[in-house]
């Protein structure tokens, strides 16, 4: 027992004790990014609904005022804005959980450092009857280093117990919340995006038809339709980009839950280089999509 503990202390002194917490930190970071990728979906539901309503208004007979149409669209889609607030809660819960895991895994097990420094200072002032220092600085340094390693080991152990319990206790909850995020993104939001896309695509087709100039004399009168195509095309591209994000999310949220289960199953075995490829791949995928969006 003593040899094992001594070896553990030696390992702490040499390389630190938190190697197996790194995958937890990685998971926390990946889950946080998943929550970040999800965040725009919550507000996007009402936004997409409003866009569809505006395009429908463009095709209605009678007077047209863009500001009035926007207000009407906002009013019509207001219930979806409220629903988006509920949907946002799922992402917030995931983000908070991810942050908690990252905190636990990234916590510095050095909370006793100031006490060690204080006691080392006191011990350093102790002198024998002849006035010589009881503990010289070299020995004090060695002793406090060992004491620190022991404290780190003990604290690290407590953090690991907490982290393991947190992972185990919350796997079912995480699964439920991520499933809800998937349902929202893949069913509710995606359905709205499709509805909007269908109207946009129909209108773009009509703009193309209306842009046809049979004679050179007709070109001038067709210019508004021709210019309008660019705006409609851009709206369609943005809609399709959002749909790609949604599909990427739905496809890879499962990977996050699987990685969470993997962490629990292998908590005692994992090393600093534990695999989280699926989650990492997702993060890269989301990043690529985000980069695409930034390039628009």
């Amino acid at each position, binding site marked *: 027992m003593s040899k094992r503990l001594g070896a553990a202390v030696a390992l702490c002194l040499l390389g630190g004790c938190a190697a197996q917490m790194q995958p937890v930190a990685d998971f926390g970071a990946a889950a946080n990014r998943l929550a970040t990728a999800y965040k725009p979906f919550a507000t996007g539901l009402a936004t997409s609904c409003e866009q569809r309503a505006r395009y*429908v208004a463009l095709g209605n007979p009678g007077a047209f005022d863009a500001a009035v149409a926007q207000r009407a669209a906002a009013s*019509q889609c207001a219930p979806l804005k409220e629903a988006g607030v509920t949907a946002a809660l799922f992402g917030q819960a995931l983000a908070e959980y991810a942050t908690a895991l990252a905190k636990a895994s990234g916590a510095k097990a050095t909370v006793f450092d100031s006490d060690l420094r204080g*006691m*080392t200072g006191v011990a350093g002032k102790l002198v024998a009857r002849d006035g010589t220092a009881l503990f010289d600085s070299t*020995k004090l340094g060695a002793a406090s280093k*060992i004491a620190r390693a*022991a404290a780190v080991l003990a604290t690290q152990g407590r953090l690991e117990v907490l982290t393991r319990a947190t992972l185990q206790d919350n796997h079912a909850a995480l699964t439920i919340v991520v499933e809800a995020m998937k349902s929202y993104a893949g069913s*509710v939001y995606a359905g709205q995006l499709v509805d909007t896309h269908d109207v946009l695509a*129909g209108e773009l087709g009509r703009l193309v038809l209306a842009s046809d100039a049979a004679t050179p004399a007709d070109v001038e009168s067709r210019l508004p339709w021709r210019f309008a195509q660019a705006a409609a095309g851009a709206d369609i591209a943005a809609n399709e980009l959002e749909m790609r994000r949604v599909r990427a999310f739905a496809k890879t949220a499962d990977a996050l839950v699987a990685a969470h289960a993997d962490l629990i199953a292998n908590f005692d075995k994992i090393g600093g280089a534990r695999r989280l490829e699926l989650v990492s791949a997702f993060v890269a995928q989301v990043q690529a999509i985000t980069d695409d969006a930034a390039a628009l």
Partner: protein
Amino acid sequence: MSTAQPSAADIAAGAVSATSAPTDGDTADALAQLADVAGHASTGLFNYRRDNPAAPDLDQALNLEMTLDQRAIDLRVQAVRLLGAQTAQALAQMKDASQKVDAFLAGEKKIEGQLVIASAVIGLAGAALVGDAGGILAAVVSVHSALDAAKS
């Protein structure tokens, strides 16, 4: 065989009946699918109006279209509410887990821990003073045991 163009009522009839009020047993995904049916039918009616500006039933088409639009919105709202209700407990549990971690990290620095470490420093320093590796190890073990015992 001629295929008669469907009227606005034909387009909407199936959709309206398919999107009737959901039951309590419907899942969020099922509600979302009903919303999709309503939305798709509404778009069909919109296209019908746009492509047939002289059709005699344009007013009826517009009314049905607006009804279906509203139904699609209502169904999507219901789907999200259902998701919210189904996840309420899980959301609360995850929030609680986050708070537990914060509480742990805040409470880790306790007076008991300080006292254990304070006395351990003296013991370890004494062992180091005599250069006794075994004594150092024994002192480390005592630190570990003391901290274990102090666990709350």
